[in-house]
């Protein structure tokens, strides 16, 4: 094999090979992070969809409940106000990189969730509402949406935790730093918060 040396020496070839390995490794590392990042974004989009679904349901719910003249105004107003506050925070993916804003978002949605669950408890006291088939369906949609939110959040948390672990562990943390992949926020358990009494945010 050592017949003659070409214009490129063995050393140069070896160097090229090593550089090739490093480049390929960097590319695969980078791509792994990109696809994990993508997974987080699509899980977040799902969370967003479900929160939006809840937002869209509320006007309908409020109108139906308003038809019941004697209905407790304070419970209804809590829901309306909580929805207004929650709608002030845009659910962009950038939210995931901002711990403070993310916490605000979670609090606002949590408050909306608990005001809704209180409404659903209060509704039990109104037999006319309960026997109204349309209202019963609306309640199914609310319950279904709450469940979808829980599922989307759980899925989202799982994906983010994988991503966060990836960007923090060697050797991927090198590429993560190099290409600017940042730690992302995820939801803290608030199982109790959904049943918690009124939270005043004034």
């Amino acid at each position, binding site marked *: 094999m050592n017949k003659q040396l070409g214009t490129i020496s063995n050393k140069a070839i070896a160097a090229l090979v090593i550089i*090739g390995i490093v480049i390929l490794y960097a590319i695969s590392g980078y*791509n792994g992070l990109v696809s*994990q990042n993508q*997974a987080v974004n699509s899980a977040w989009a799902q969370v967003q969809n479900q929160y939006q679904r809840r937002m869209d349901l509320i006007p309908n719910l409020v109108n139906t409940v308003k038809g019941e003249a004697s209905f407790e105004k304070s419970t209804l107003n809590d829901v309306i106000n909580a929805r207004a506050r929650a709608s002030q925070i845009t659910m962009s993916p950038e939210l995931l990189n901002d711990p403070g804003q993310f916490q605000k978002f979670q609090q606002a949605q949590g408050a909306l969730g608990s005001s809704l669950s209180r409404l659903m408890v209060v509704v039990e006291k109104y037999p006319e509402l309960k026997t109204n088939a349309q209202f*019963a369906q609306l309640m*199914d949609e609310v319950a279904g949406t709450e469940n*979808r939110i829980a599922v989307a959040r759980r899925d989202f948390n799982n994906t983010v935790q994988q991503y966060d672990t*990836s960007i*923090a562990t060697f050797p991927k943390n090198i590429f993560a730093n190099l290409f600017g992949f940042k730690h992302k926020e995820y939801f803290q358990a608030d199982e109790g918060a959904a049943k918690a009494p009124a939270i005043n945010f004034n």
Partner: protein
Amino acid sequence: MVYSAMTKRLFCALLFVVVNVFAINIPNRPDSRVIDQTNTLSSQQQQVLRSALNEIYNTESHTEIQVLMVPSLDNEPIEDVSLRIARKWQIGQKNTNNGVIILIALKERKYRIEVGYGLEGVLPDGYIGNLERDIMMPYFARNDFFNGLKLVISNLGQEIARDYKHLPGRPAGQIPTKNAIIYVLLGIGIFVIIVILALASGSPGRIADILWLILNIITLASLFRGGGGGNNRDDDTGGGGDFGGGGSQGKW
């Protein structure tokens, strides 16, 4: 800051393990569309339900409906149990996510119909809730599970046939394949460059060596390949249908 993030992660991992330890053990996906662990339905009745479900499966929509009767939920919320079963068994097709699972827990007297992603538009929660209140609740209260299920299944079949136009895929898309394509293109690019360099070196005898090296590099690189994100579900014994918590539940 870093420390607290680490502890948080550790805590969550621990929590995950704990939750998993206490969760009901879900068997592998069964071959039958009707599973009765409570011995409530006779084998004849099961056969009737099974053929009704097969009939629905053989229609244009290929909707997969699974019936499961369990003795107890072991203190787990029914929506958690049904979602875990639905996702483990992957009822429904991969692209259309057109699965439905009807779960009945005798001890708790609870039922839930879990609707796959793709059928959420055809079978909205309100419709499912009505079906449950109108049929399951009264029939089950009389312990007539067979006729209750039969009626629910035929209603579901009719509703799907009536409303079925196209089944959308999962709303927020899967991992795009674009990354893989870029990866392949880059690989080919590097390959070509190295071959050109080898040719330019004026020693064609060496090309074979270099090609062999490149192959090694690629194998190595694929070993190091980043673990992609995406679906990290238990296993894929089923048809591939996914669920997102749609459906409705109740008590009799």
